[in-house]
């Protein structure tokens, strides 16, 4: 290197020690409170108003679904044609529909089948999907190839179309359980794919290899390390899926092939109401608004939970 004379502004300079005290190399901050992944996510969630709105809505909807009688003393099936399309009156805040049923009572009682279908289907789908996806991703080989092909087949049939076809065949067996099974059968591949991808990405982490090198068994590595670390995308998807299953049920009921007439449901009521939309739009509005609000609260929850669990967001 050529020896050049020091130029202006480039003389040897060093800061006074008191200006920049040199800390201990890599010291541990002992003052901060420990934060697990879940605690961290909770801190994120707590600050989001959308989380609180969604939580309150979901809580309310679930209470309405479980205890509809707390909210109305009117029997939603007690219809009197004499009340046909009457406007709101005392004790009947939303008025009556064409059949003379109380719209408010029907809207309240419609929550139960929707929420039941949503929750049960999500449970079925998560159980099957997570199990299949985890095994395929973790054990790989022929099981993985087989599963991937089966998933492709289920994917080749659009979800709603498949549900419509199969429900139309099972017309005489209509009911909540049938809807749950049909939606479950066609809903699990998506979650299996998500779980598989998630497991695959965690599987090769160094901490999994470290567990292997410790002598931990394959099954315990899967349950103790891989699944907890793969859970976030499954939780997010399941929350959003719960909403879409409710829409799917409503769509089927709307087409008259979901829940039978004997069950009070939003989809069925919307279907009835649309025929008289021009005469009495209110009849459509209430069940539709209740349905949309329910779905919206679950989708919103999924959205904020995704942000909170996003590993990219976690890195400060």
């Amino acid at each position, binding site marked *: 290197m050529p020896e050049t004379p020091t130029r202006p502004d480039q003389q040897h300079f060093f800061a006074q020690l008191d200006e920049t005290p040199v800390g201990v190399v890599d010291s541990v901050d002992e003052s901060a409170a420990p934060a697990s992944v879940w605690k961290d996510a909770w801190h994120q969630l707590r600050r989001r108003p959308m989380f609180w709105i969604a939580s309150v809505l979901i809580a309310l909807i679930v209470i309405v679904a479980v205890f509809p009688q707390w909210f109305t003393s009117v029997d939603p099936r007690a219809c009197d044609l004499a009340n046909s399309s009457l406007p709101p009156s005392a004790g009947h805040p939303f008025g009556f529909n064409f059949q003379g049923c109380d719209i408010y009572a029907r809207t309240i009682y419609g929550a139960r089948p929707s929420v039941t279908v949503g929750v049960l289907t999500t449970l079925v789908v998560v159980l099957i999907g997570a199990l299949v996806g985890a095994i395929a991703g973790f054990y790989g080989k022929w099981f993985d190839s087989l599963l991937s092909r089966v998933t492709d087949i289920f994917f080749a049939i659009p979800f*709603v179309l498949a549900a419509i*076809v199969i429900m139309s065949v099972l017309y005489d067996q209509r009911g909540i359980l049938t809807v749950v099974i049909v939606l479950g059968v066609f809903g699990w591949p998506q979650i299996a794919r998500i779980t598989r991808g998630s497991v695959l990405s965690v599987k090769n982490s160094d901490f999994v290899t470290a567990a292997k090198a410790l002598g931990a068994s394959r099954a315990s590595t899967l349950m103790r390390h891989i699944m907890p670390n793969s859970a976030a995308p499954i939780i997010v998807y399941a929350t959003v899926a719960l909403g879409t299953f409710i829409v799917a049920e409503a769509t089927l009921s709307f087409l008259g092939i979901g829940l039978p007439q004997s069950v009070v449901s939003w989809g069925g009521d919307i279907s009835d109401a649309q025929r008289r939309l021009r005469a009495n739009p209110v009849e459509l509005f209430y069940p539709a608004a209740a349905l949309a609000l329910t*779905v919206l609260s679950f989708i919103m929850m999924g959205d904020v939970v995704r942000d909170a669990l996003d590993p990219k967001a976690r890195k400060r």
Partner: protein
Amino acid sequence: MAWYVGRRFLQLIPVFLGATLLIYAMVFLLPGDPILALGGDRGISDALAERLRERYNLDEPFLVQYLLYLKGIFSLDFGITFSGEEVIDVMKRVFPVTFQLAVMALLFEGIFGIGFGLIAGLRKGKLFDSTALVLSLIVIAVPTFVIGFVLQFVVGVKLGWLPPTVGSNVNFKTLLMPAIVLGAVSFAYVLRLTRTSVAENLSADYVRTATAKGVSRSRVINVHVLRNSLIPVVTFLGADLGSLMAGAIITEGIFNINGVGGTLYRAIIQGQAPTVVSLTTVLVIVYILSNLLVDLLYAVLDPRIRYA
């Protein structure tokens, strides 16, 4: 590239066989006599029942029935409808309508979804972004049939801006509202996908490098941010063509469109199992092909795939 396409194509064969077998099994293997159930409450004539039984080889073992049905598909023989019409003739009549509707819906969601998504992504956290996010959630949450009825009622009946139903009068103006309804949910998804993608690419290292080259901001956004963000979006749009055609079942029912969905809707209501199977099979084929299209598009858009 050729190998990539070839492999993709070969992978479609088991998927096609599996999916059609699944549909066939769903309709013909489930409890109850599909032919007797056909007529619903009204019942059907013995002569037609006999004809259908023969047509679908219902006396043969199930797998033979399926194979004979497959053979029929390959010779474009999709069977006959309730009224005795050849299904292939029905398809020739209804598919162009649905295709036009689906393409219009696709254009709507593509143009507006990408446009709004880009703006939202560039202004992440600002007012436009949060508004777009909340609105997109609402669009996703409100079921298609509710959006359909409300638009039909407000725009079609009350305001009279657009015809509320289509019927035999199929043109751009009549299909506009159904297309918007059909594409509404996907529009919300495209918007969100574009937004996330744009926001992510905006902080990508190569975008910073491009800026450091001295390239202007508008060019950086067009050439680098948008171009790269489009990869997942276009993939979504391609796959969506298939779902839109299947999803038309509700929209066409609402707006009284004589397309695939409308025909399928009526066939389901009337319990015409053979027609349902045939139309569904074609929809599945469209869906599979649109997924193949996506794979090809993906290869075109992303050179890393092209040379894999």
